[in-house]
């Protein structure tokens, strides 16, 4: 049970850490100064949420590993994030669409976690709900701007959605970890979260005049540590100093 709870907490944490990493790549390169600042705020929010979760994961595991140990000293196969968040930034439409799809899942998940039997997760979710509400508002508004804006922006947003859609199935995967914790009242059931995700996506895409892609083949594996090739590069970069100077203080 502790093992599954550890794995589950890592899944929550790794999504946020990896997405924060991707968003932080924009810092200094945003499409306009105001939006550069907004994206960095998101990166900081996700980083803070990830730290809380990693600290808790370390407690659950009970082997004295800190948030830094878990972030910097696990390898590609030990990361548990969904493949969606490790996808490259691409153009701004890809970045926004990736966040939008994630936010549409993350907000109802955090809301549902408020009723978890795990008090620590409830506390962490309590803070995250406020941030996630803002994130979804921000990314939804941009989806609408792109969809409704110019022909070019519409096309770019549609392409981004089409490219990323295959990674959304994994957000609601029903595996043993999920089922066990669902039964224990710790993890919320995937069904209602998927329903909330669907209704947000449908509503926003309708307003944006964008087409919801067909549910075709859905990529999986991230939750079990089988990632796309992108994650290896993310970790190589993120972990470089910790790996090059083992045990050093910074």
């Amino acid at each position, binding site marked *: 049970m502790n093992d599954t709870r550890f794995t589950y907490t890592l899944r929550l944490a790794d999504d946020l850490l990896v997405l924060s990493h991707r968003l932080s790549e924009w810092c*200094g*390169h945003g*499409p*306009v100064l105001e939006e550069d*600042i907004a994206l960095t705020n998101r990166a900081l929010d996700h980083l803070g949420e990830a730290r809380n979760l990693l600290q808790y994961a370390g407690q659950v595991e009970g082997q004295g590993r800190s948030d830094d140990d878990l972030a910097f000293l696990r390898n590609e196969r030990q990361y548990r994030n969904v493949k969606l968040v490790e996808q490259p930034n691409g153009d701004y439409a890809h970045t926004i669409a990736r966040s939008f799809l994630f936010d549409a899942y993350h907000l109802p998940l955090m809301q549902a976690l408020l009723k978890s039997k795990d008090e620590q997760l409830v506390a962490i979710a309590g803070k995250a709900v406020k941030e996630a509400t803002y994130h979804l508002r921000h990314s939804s508004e941009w989806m609408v701007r792109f969809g409704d*804006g110019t022909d070019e922006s519409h096309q770019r947003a549609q392409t981004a959605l089409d490219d990323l859609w295959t990674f959304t199935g994994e957000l609601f995967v029903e595996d043993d970890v999920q089922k066990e914790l669902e039964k224990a009242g710790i993890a919320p059931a995937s069904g209602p979260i998927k329903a909330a995700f669907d209704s947000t996506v449908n509503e926003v895409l309708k307003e944006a005049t964008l087409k919801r892609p067909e549910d075709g083949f859905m990529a999986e594996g991230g939750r079990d540590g089988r990632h796309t090739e992108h994650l290896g590069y993310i970790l190589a970069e993120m972990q470089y100093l910790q790996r090059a*100077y083992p045990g*050093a*203080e*910074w």
Partner: protein
Amino acid sequence: MTEVKDLEALFQARIDAEQKIEPRDWMPEKYRKNLVRQVSQHAHSEVVGMLPEGNWITRAPNLRRKAILLAKVQDEAGHGLYLYSACETLGVTRESTIDDLLSGRAKYSSIFNYPTLTWADIGAIGWLVDGAAIMNQVMLTRTSYGPYARAMVRICKEESFHQRQGYEIMAVLSKGKPEQKAMAQDALNRWWWPSLMMFGPHDSESAHTAESMKWKIKRESNDELRQKFIDRTVQQAEVIGLTVPDPDLKWNEERGHYDHGEIDWKEFWNVVEGNGPCNHERMKARITAHENGRWVREAAAAHASKKTKKKQAA
């Protein structure tokens, strides 16, 4: 009709009486131009300055440092924005100010044309570069142009953690493994002289100093500020066991200041003229961001105008 001469006398009297100049006040065209040059240069420096530090965000050595660095670089973006706003009160749009940067007509602080090669460079930038910038910025909170002074008050408040986080990085590295201490010393060696150059040419050589002082845009000279910076920083280096790379550095009891070696002005002008290690990369990064952002800005504007039209039709 009041004569320009009288207006100028009134203007100077107001400055001498320590009253702020506000956007709609009459001001000599040269005052306005001088300010636009300085404020926009300052704004560009904040924005270009995001690049060398941004270079290490994805490689920060732990989560605490990563959060600090992200917040700091984000502050620089905010500061750039405050300053572009101050510039707009002088009647120049953000667009034209940025055009000046991207076309190479406007300058930014040369310090950001140096590369961040190791993590210790992030420490050195916070400690030395922000340390030098703060000297200048604290002075500018008392500058004669109201919007510029107000922007600087806000910036100084926010910057107070920037120098500290940099010095903390250097202190931790100096106490760390021998390779870490060497990394810190190497960063100090590379950043020391360029930091001193940040204060600009000697007073005797500076093209804008006299006028800027008369109008109280600047309130202390390049050399005065540089001396203040050296006096403070040498002591800080001693505390963490690092050596300032200047063999001529010596306490002068009589002056009550440190004497220091001569700055390599050839290097300074070389970098100003575009031949620094990263001039090309920095400009390219800004131009790419601007160009890649064009369709995004257009999309948002198009959506906003459609929305307004819909509202009007309803």
